[in-house]
């Protein structure tokens, strides 16, 4: 990967989660933007130019899977982490087709928030 991750968009309809992640990542020096829905995220997507999107799957209208697909279409170099509360979540075929792997799924709640950083570092290293 040529460019390391700087800018992250967090999409989650739960404010507590948006806040915990954004505060944690800001403190680590990342540039953060948050969105409470897929529609909101897409609105700011082009202007923000995120390197990484952390996406909740169950969202009010458009769901996380579709959002990831859309973002991928808009910007094919963006990376993704899926942060979901549904324990039985399985990667749909269209996401694995665009190269998203099970390691990119984080199940809520993270017992240790540092797991998030570890996941970002892994992505950054292109693993």
């Amino acid at each position: 990967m040529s460019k390391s991750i700087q800018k992250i968009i967090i999409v989650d309809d739960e404010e507590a989660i948006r806040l915990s992640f954004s505060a944690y990542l800001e403190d680590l020096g990342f540039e953060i933007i948050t969105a409470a829905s897929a529609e909101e995220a897409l609105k700011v997507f082009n202007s923000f130019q995120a390197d990484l999107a952390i996406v909740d799957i169950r969202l009010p209208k458009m769901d996380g899977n579709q959002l990831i697909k859309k973002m991928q279409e808009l910007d094919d170099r963006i990376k993704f982490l899926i942060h979901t509360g549904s324990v039985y979540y399985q990667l749909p075929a269209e996401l694995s087709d665009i190269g998203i792997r099970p390691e990119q799924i984080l199940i809520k709640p993270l017992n240790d928030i540092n797991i998030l950083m570890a996941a970002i570092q892994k992505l950054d290293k292109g693993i």
Partner: protein
Amino acid sequence: MTAKGEIGRLAKAFNDMVVTLDRTLRELQDEVTARKMTEEALRDNVEMLRATFESSDDGIIVLDSNKKITHYNSRYLEMWNIPYEQMITAKSSDIFNHIYVQLEGENRDEIANALIQSFQSGEKYRKIVHLKNGSVYESYSSPLIRDNKLVGRLFSYKDVTERMQYLAKIKDQEENYRTIFDSVNEAIFIHDKDSIKIIDVNRAACQIYQLSREELLKMDVGALSAGYEPYTSKEAAEKLRIAVTEGPHTFEWLARKKDGTLFWVEVSLKLSRIMGNERIIAVVRDISDRKKAEEALRESEERYRSIYENATMGIYRTTPEGELLLANPAFLKMFGYQTIEELMEMSKREDISERGYDREDFIRQFDDKSEVRGYESTWRKKNGQVVYLRENAKAIRDKNGKILYFEGLIEDITEQKKLQAEIAKVRMLLSNIVNSMPSVLIGVDPKGIITQWNRQAEFKSGIKSQKALGSPLNKVMPRLAEELNKVTETIRNRKIHFHPKVVEETEEGRRYSDITIYPLISNGVEGAVIRMDDVTDRVRIEEMMIQSEKMLMVGGLAAGMAHEINNPLAGMIQNAQVVVNRLSANLPANEKAALAHGTNMKAIRGFMKDRDILKMLELIQVTGKRAAQIVESMLSFSRKSDAGIVPVDINDLIKSTVELADSDYDLKKKYDFKKIKIDYKLDTTLPQIPCEPVKIQQVVLNLLKNSAQAMAGYAEQTIPTITIKTFLLDKYVQIEIEDNGPGMDEEIRKRVFEPFFSTKPVGVGTGLGLSVSYFIITENHKGQMQVESTPLQGTKFIIKLPLERIRL
């Protein structure tokens, strides 16, 4: 003709003789008188007459017409005891008086009157004169006529005492004979030999023939006979003739009574001489009764013969040596022979018994009795078929007790034997079926007495059927006592009674039985069959299934709400961690913000420490994580795929799990796991089994933890020990993990696998450990998991894992 007649004749002859004598005498007297009166000259004659007169045996006296005694002889004086001297001077009146007093009183006056009247009438008379001294005289009186002129009267007396006595004796005898003659029961006819006419009959003859003597004497024998051949007068005459020509003979005769009734008699004819006459004496006996008896006997004999000939039972008589003396057709038929001779010949040639007939044994049966019943023997018939016989035999002995022969009845019981064998076979089959049933089957009568006790009943109760049969059920199996009421009810209602899951506490723990009572109403035999099935295993499985259902429900619920809970938990836990970061981490932003507010991180950290803020934040994270853990555990209660199933050596897995437990911080610190003795009893020959090792490890670890927790602080005098056993059982590998801890009671034991059931203080356990374990074993691995425990004696968990993967 009769004896009486004979005697009469005799008497008459005698009389005639006397009369003749009298006449002679009288003629003589007349002649003497005449001569006296007419011729003195005829002195010689007179003298002779006088001498005759004097020597006469008769006493004679003659009176003249003036009643003066003119003549008398010495015999007269002698007969009347008149002394000669007195006679010389006596007048006739003196003599008369003299005679009179000697007469017997009864006919004294009659005699006296006759005497007196004779003088007036001049008649002759003859009288019998009885004297007081017992002599009997016959007196004769006659007038004396000379020249047609009455000149006097003659009286003569003849001594007839002896003759009269003789006559009386004869009469007596005759009467005796008559009495005998009339008193016999047989009819007696006396026939004249030549005319064959009936000349006398006795009273019995009158009675038997219903005819009077007079009637009988007039009848011909033909009229007293049936009247048809060969019982006619002609044949009767012939019979009488034979008695004369050939001697006495006896024959049966069909006789006729007055009213025409015919009856059988036996006649004995004999020629006899009676009073000098030849007579045929016929003795006739009524033999109707004898004839009837003979007839009855003949009929009876015919009947018996018919029975003998036609009986379906064999009738025989044999000698002790086995010689067949008598055998009826049925007997021969049983052996298949036509005649006794044929049968005897065959039996002499070869042994016709099927299994060696022991004659000695048969005879021994009679050692102490005269009759044997139901003696069985087996024979081969003429056609080779086997015949089973049963006999009732009787020994006939002589007066010394020696057996003369045997008589008996035999019965062909071949069919019966076949049936018996068939019945025995069926009974054996039924008994085998009943005994091979896995259920306890107990038959009872309406009074609760045991009539059936199958092998399973023996096995379950430890009581042999010989002992149980005939005993009251409530004594033999007290636990069924209360079912007895149902037995009565069942018999009355004829309805099957079902009582499921009846509990029994045994030494091996609680057992469950389904008890079914079936009414038995067949052929009037009342009773019931109690069927008892041990359904403990089924009940346990049901319990487990209920557990599984509960867990699946929890799993489903958890899956549905996991997302909803996990999101807030994530917000809570993650924010708490970020808060800690922002309050304590050496972040430039933290310092910058602190300075902006006139303080520094050092001060803030001091404040936090003093106020235990960080500790609280940590607790938020810990408790949040525990909530997350609960949700995760609940999520285990859902079926998952076969992913992760690999062949595993269970023994290795157990050992590695124990090592893991050793290094477990909580176990080490809180429960002194190191102090617990692990006792391995592992079967090293176990094959690898397909399972999810991580899951099984989770289960084993959970059990080790539970045991360690249970034993902590319990029974310090004993070494806390966990015994782990593995072995092969059926198609499973069985793992037993047993501790010697405090154990648990039945109430707890029943609930240990329930989700959220916990005996630990709140916060110590989730109440899901055992239920998750149970779920892993039974649902994920299709194995079985049980717990056995007795308070104060430890707890044993039993896990059974199938040797082969059972597809979900």
